[in-house]
């Protein structure tokens, strides 16, 4: 028996979320008296693979099949299902991100396993296996019993945190049985923005809304993001107006994020926006309107003009960093 | 009796709401301030089929009932009455009259492009000295054998510039008084037609309103609607339906202002609590809600009578008079609920208040409606 984690990498490096998944699986394994195995698919060097041990993985199945360098839902599913069979895994953990959403449901069918998606913590009971997941776009939580023998969990970002559990990871090469005819998708072109912090992976996100008045005023947001090592985001009206790209749109129908710190500048906080950011650990709101609903969700707030506050904030943070 | 809307009516209501919020709301303040015609909004209105929504599908219309029209007018007017008035004039005044009284040739040539929204229409009745009193028409349509020669000036014409098709009410036999009036379809680009400047209005500033001058405008006889001398009856019948449109518009202005007042009262705090918890505000909102409900019921009743092919002139006059006056009251109170914020453009209610005023004036003032109502109820 074991717990299997799909350890996703990005350009050969594991994502922050991957370490969170291993930490989470390690906690599960302690309660269930078992161990954590991870499966990595793609080109990742040994030094990076060893990092999985730091968070509690005792075994890493390393799949380096070059046919799987880009995501193909079906063959990734086959690889993970075969790894689960080999490791006799009772629980398989994925991240609740685009990749997890693409593969976890397929794996659940292949293994006749119940799936709990968007889980926010460890099980509240092991018998029956009961777990809490987000529903109604974070406006409610559901207690879900997973009844099948094998269970699949996709964990919400920042739901558990990263915890070190130093373990020696035994790295093992793994070649899943995949025929060329199983691969039905062809990646023709990849357009990746490099050198920029990913919105979903960022610890800090600096976001602007209509109160920023226009795209010409985003300089402050970008500068603040740069000094904080943060990603930039925006509210829906801003992306609809074309002030910023749709990729930055956070909210119920855009990206759902959960950074440690979220700055909302000139965002009123429509219920749909809050649905996408309310899981952030700390929310700072700056808005002229003292009654803006964003203040209901915020931990810290300034009632004032975002355009005036941002430069002062930049100066104050620079001062802090200098000391 | 059944107060439940049909599935279709609900869908139309939602479509109108989505349209207004998505296509009109974002620039309504700017268009009002700068008096810019809602070209893009009207284009979308046409695509969605709102301009000929009640016309028989055989002429390219939507074939919807008048109840649906009331619901759609209300939703659009909540956001932008300058767009709603285009819809009202096209549906109620121009298209309805053509569909009801025009002949097949006129329908093919003029109704079809109007019902499909390829063309916009305008209804030319008001004159410098004949507003709500339609009998004293000074514009003449002289019978020249195979054509009419139109001379005179029409005032306060909604869609005057954007329309391609005019329905002109003019006097052919001055000695016969109102029995000598004709309704004539006129292409706007006919030689001899000139427009006055864009009127600088108090509200509905983005709808295009001009006076229209006719100087020896030649129109073929075949463009007359109905029998010779039918024009006055035509105008009166058309206005009966038009009142339902404007009543629904006034209703929408009121309910739009009311919704904003409710939302604001639940957000704004004073003396340590949301202002909706203060009875002074809560009672205002209660009064507004009752008035709006009354107005809506009057509109729906008139629409229902029309859909049942029962007489609806009295009901539509009641709806128009009540809703217009009610909209003025409700929007004034909505501004009051907003306090200082209500007096600035950003919060919309001051604009809605300016828009409400026009509904008491055009397509028959509230006073004229009372003439219609009193004459009907006092008739033996």
């Amino acid at each position, binding site marked *: 028996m074991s717990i299997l984690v799909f350890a996703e990498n990005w350009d050969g490096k594991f994502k922050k979320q991957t370490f969170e998944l291993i930490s989470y699986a390690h906690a599960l394994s302690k309660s269930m008296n078992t161990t954590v195995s991870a499966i990595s698919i793609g080109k990742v060097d040994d030094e990076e693979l060893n990092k999985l041990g730091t968070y509690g993985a005792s075994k890493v199945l390393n799949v380096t099949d070059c046919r799987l360098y880009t995501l193909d839902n079906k063959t990734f599913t086959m690889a993970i299902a075969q790894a689960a069979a080999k490791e006799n895994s009772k629980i398989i953990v994925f991240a609740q991100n685009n990749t997890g959403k693409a593969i976890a449901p397929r794996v659940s069918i292949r293994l006749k396993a119940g799936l709990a*998606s968007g889980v926010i913590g460890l099980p509240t009971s092991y018998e029956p296996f009961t777990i809490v997941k987000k529903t109604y776009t974070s406006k409610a939580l559901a207690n879900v019993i997973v009844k099948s023998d094998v269970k699949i969990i996709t964990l919400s970002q920042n739901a558990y945190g990263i915890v070190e559990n130093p373990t020696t990871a035994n790295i093992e090469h793994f070649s899943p049985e995949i025929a060329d005819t199983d691969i039905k998708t062809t990646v023709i072109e990849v357009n990746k923005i490099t050198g920029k912090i990913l919105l979903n992976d960022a610890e800090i996100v600096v976001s602007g809304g209509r109160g920023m008045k226009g795209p010409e005023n985003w300089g402050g947001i970008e500068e603040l993001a740069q000094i904080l090592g943060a990603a930039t985001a925006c509210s829906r009206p801003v992306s609809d107006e074309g002030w910023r790209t749709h990729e930055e749109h956070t909210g119920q129908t855009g990206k759902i994020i959960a950074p440690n710190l979220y700055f909302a500048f000139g965002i009123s906080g429509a219920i749909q926006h809050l649905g996408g950011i309310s899981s952030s650990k700390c929310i700072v709101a700056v808005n002229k309107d003292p009654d803006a609903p964003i203040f209901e969700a915020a931990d810290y707030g300034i009632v004032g003009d975002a355009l005036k506050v941002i430069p002062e904030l930049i100066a104050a943070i620079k001062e802090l960093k200098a000391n | 009796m059944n107060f439940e809307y049909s599935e279709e009516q609900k869908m139309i209501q939602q479509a109108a709401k989505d349209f207004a919020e*998505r296509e009109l709301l974002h620039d309504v303040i700017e268009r009002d301030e700068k008096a810019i015609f809602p070209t893009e909004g009207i284009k979308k209105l046409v695509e969605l089929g709102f301009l000929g929504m009640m016309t028989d599908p055989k002429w390219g219309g939507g074939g919807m009932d008048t109840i649906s029209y009331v619901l759609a007018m209300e939703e659009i007017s909540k956001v932008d009455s300058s767009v709603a008035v285009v819809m009202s004039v096209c549906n109620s005044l121009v298209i309805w009259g053509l569909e009801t009284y025009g002949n097949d040739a006129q329908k093919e040539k003029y109704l079809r492009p109007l019902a499909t929204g390829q063309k916009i229409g305008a209804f030319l009745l008001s004159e410098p000295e004949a507003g709500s009193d339609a009998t004293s028409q000074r514009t003449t349509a002289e019978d020249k054998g195979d054509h009419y020669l139109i001379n005179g000036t029409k005032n306060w014409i909604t869609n005057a510039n954007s329309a391609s098709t005019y329905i002109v009410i003019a006097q052919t036999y001055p000695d016969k008084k109102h029995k000598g009036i004709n309704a004539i379809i006129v292409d706007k680009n006919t030689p001899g037609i000139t427009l006055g400047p864009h009127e600088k209005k108090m509200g509905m500033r983005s709808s295009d309103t001009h006076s229209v001058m006719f100087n020896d405008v030649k129109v073929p006889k075949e463009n007359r609607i109905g029998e010779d001398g039918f024009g006055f009856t035509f105008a009166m019948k058309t206005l009966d339906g038009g009142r339902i449109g404007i009543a629904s518009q006034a209703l929408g202005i009121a309910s739009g202002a009311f919704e904003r007042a409710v939302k604001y009262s639940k957000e704004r705090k004073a003396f340590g609590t949301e202002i909706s918890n203060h009875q002074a505000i809560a009672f205002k909102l209660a009064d507004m809600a009752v008035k709006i409900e009354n107005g809506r019921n009057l509109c729906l009743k008139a629409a229902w009578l029309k859909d049942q092919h029962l007489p609806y002139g009295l009901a539509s006059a009641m709806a128009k008079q009540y809703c217009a006056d009610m909209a003025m009251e409700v929007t004034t109170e909505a501004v009051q609920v907003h306090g200082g914020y209500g007096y600035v453009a950003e919060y919309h209610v001051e604009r809605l208040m300016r828009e409400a005023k026009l509904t008491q004036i055009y397509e028959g003032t509230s006073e004229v409606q009372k003439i219609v109502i009193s004459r009907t109820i006092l008739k033996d």
Partner: protein
Amino acid sequence: MKILVCISNVPDTTTKIKFLNNNTTFDSAGVQWIINPWDELALTRAIELKEAHAGAVSEITVVNVGLPTTEPTIRKALAIGADKAIRVNLDPKDAYTVALQLSEIIKKDSFDIILCGIESSDYNGTSVGGMLSELLDFPSVSAVSFIDIEGDQLKLKREIDGGQEIIGISTPFIGIVQKGIAKDARIPNMRGIMMAKTKPLQVVEPVSADLYTDFVSFDYPKAKASCKKVDPDNVKELVNLLHNEAKVI
């Protein structure tokens, strides 16, 4: 080509979420129901494809797993432009049940493109499309933000972290779509609303299924502590709080 769009009936996104019976049942009183926003965008794109490739796309079907109360939502999909609809007469209890019912519908017919929204705004399962693909052994692509037909192939854009991939795929396949697939959901026009009445809506009885999961009860997220306000003239204080109190910078 025939396109199938799977639609789910969900509470309007502005709905205040409440539960009844000891937090075991969703309180649907006064709730306005809509087509799940992602599914509605998928349908909009399907209609755009049919309009752009009149010869290539012959028919758009929508399918919903739900009780008769979901029919207004299905009619709206028909008013927007779907040609016909199927309703599987079952109150869906989890993603697997929905996927299983959908797979039965697809097995009985032949669809070339099957589109599902990436998630539904009620259960946020993000699972139906993926499960359906595996049940049918169809290829699937998730997080699709663009789709177009190029000859007998399809060209997709898949959102990945920090960018996109352009993907080629043959039919049949399942596209699990996200925001961006169409700009805005369509508003039905008068003609569409009128025609929706007469378009076929077939009701199919469900196949029996074992549930793997059981939604036993619901909770409300913990209310946040109230917001600490900082004077706009004292931005330094905010930085101080973030550094020393919240320890986030």
